[in-house]
């Protein structure tokens, strides 16, 4: 079983990555080099985070290119307040976007995944491949008519439109995650037993399958929440700073002609906080979505 190719089952927890054997306790020269390297890379990866955090607590003359790496002369929340002022409305809107997207996409994904994992109708493979292709397309290739069509079918602009498009273009990845989940974790006998008892497909799905789908739901909910939260492409095409999500507001705050660096950094932290909290608390499932092979960041 490979855990990496696209249709392969995603490991639903990070435990899959854990070593099978205990680390050797040796402290030779090789070991010193190894630890020196992992620590060096740890520092490099955290460096941008350091700059973000220290700058966000600076204000006024404290902010400067040459003093970028210094700790603040005086720690202040002024920049956080400034950033929050310009971001809080979109911060709330982004929750109104990401939560419905995560829930709706997951339910659709579960239904599709169940059907595709059990019912091998003629051409099922082709259909599945056609579904999957949808998650790799550059969305620019649909964006021009998409703007017109959402207006034509009467979806209100801003968040409702974005909820709709994220749900539609989230179908492939959620279907993939659930198909793999059901194919590997739900025993054939369970479905067969339900069939013998006279339960139809819909009833089997609702009463037998859904209750044991929680690990799959955790993965798709995290995945869709994160991608809706972090999305910028759909947001810039289909919304604006008044009705759009936080990435648009952050870009307006940080992309001005002479941006306030401290407020921009505080804003970047505010923008990243929800997804980072999800990552830290639920990281073990976060990886499941990653492994499913899509990176819609």
């Amino acid at each position, binding site marked *: *079983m490979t*855990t*990496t*190719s*696209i249709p*392969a089952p995603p490991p639903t927890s990070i435990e899959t*990555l854990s*070593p*099978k054997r205990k*680390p050797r306790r040796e402290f030779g020269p090789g070991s010193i080099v190894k630890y020196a*390297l992992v620590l060096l890379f740890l520092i490099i*990866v955290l*460096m*941008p985070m350091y*700059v*973000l955090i220290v*700058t966000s607590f600076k204000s006024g003359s404290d902010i*400067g*290119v*040459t003093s*970028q790496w210094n700790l603040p002369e005086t720690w202040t929340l002024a920049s956080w307040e400034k950033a929050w002022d310009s971001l809080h409305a979109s911060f709330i809107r982004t929750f109104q976007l990401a939560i419905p997207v995560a829930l709706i996409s997951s339910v659709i994904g579960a239904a*599709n995944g169940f*059907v595709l994992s059990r*019912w091998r*109708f003629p051409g099922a*493979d082709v*259909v*599945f*491949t056609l579904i999957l*292709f*949808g998650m*790799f*397309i*550059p*969305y*620019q*290739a*649909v*964006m*021009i*008519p998409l703007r017109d069509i959402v207006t034509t079918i009467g979806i209100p602009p801003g968040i409702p439109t974005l909820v709709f498009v994220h749900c539609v*273009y989230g*179908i*492939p990845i959620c279907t993939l995650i659930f198909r793999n989940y059901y194919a590997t974790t739900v025993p054939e006998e369970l479905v067969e037993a339900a069939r013998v008892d006279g339960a139809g*497909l*819909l009833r089997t799905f609702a009463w037998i399958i859904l209750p044991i789908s929680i690990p799959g739901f955790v993965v798709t909910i995290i995945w869709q929440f994160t991608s809706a939260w972090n999305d*910028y*492409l759909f947001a*810039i095409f289909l919304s604006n700073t008044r009705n759009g999500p936080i990435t648009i507001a*952050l*870009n307006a705050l*940080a992309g001005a002609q002479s941006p306030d660096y401290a407020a921009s950094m505080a804003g*970047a932290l505010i923008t*990243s906080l929800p*997804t980072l909290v999800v990552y830290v608390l639920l990281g073990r499932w*976060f*990886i499941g979505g990653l*492994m499913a092979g899509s*990176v819609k*960041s």
Partner: protein
Amino acid sequence: MRRLRQWGPGLLLLSPSLILLAVFVYGLIAWTTKVSVSDEHNALGSKGFVGLENYTKLFTDDINDRFVHSLKNLLIFTVVFLVGAMLFGLLWAFLLERGVRGEGIFRTVYLFPMAVSFVASGVVWRWLMNPNKGENAGGLNAVFGGLGLDFLQNTWWTNPDWGMAAMAMPAIWQLSGYVMALFLAGFRGIPQELREAAAVDGASTYRLYRNVIFPQLTPVALSALIILGHMSMKMFDLIMSVSGPQWLTEVPAVYVWQTLLTSDYAKAAAISIILLLLVAVVIVPYLIYTNRAEKNT
């Protein structure tokens, strides 16, 4: 009739998604294609069909060869991004696979940039890649100055020839952890017996990796390359956030956006379709290959 009862309920459950994807993926791609062969160069609409003129003009008759320039930028970006992320990802996975105490912490930190949006990380990378040198150096240039490595100081993405290589750095920072996770799962998926058999045969550590372990990782490497490669071709958020739309760092995805702002729908559609074809060339064989590989297991 029996066939219908067998597959009917499943197809019923699947059909809303299939219709949505048929319309919003394939239908809209067809629509974009239609716009790309029209003369809809402003908001007044189209007067007729012009064949492939919009496509050929991009290559032969674009001001300052703007489209070719954006492809060249994309090529530099993609090469540096792929090489960088694959190298760091493999190195990190290799180091952790050798056994490191506190592995969970390193893994979590290496992977955390994945949870941050390009828009947010762009805010800090814009500052880290400050082009000032010497006395006024900030960001990475200041780090090089402090370490006595002044010769490494450079103008980053503002360099007209190799700026796109610098632009790949934030992308490497963000996705090396993902490649690490893929490789780590690959390493840990190799049966312990294989290592033991090699040890019994008296293979050195070098030979063990060279002849036993690395060949097993080829499918992982292929998946990683294709996923990163298709992401790279679609790169939009990062560039919009670090440099904003401008000539020096323009790639096709940004060019589409800039063209739409001038209401030249036909040209924007033609660039989008070229982008789609670039992605399809990479993704379609991969989907077919993984589909076959799955059937054989």
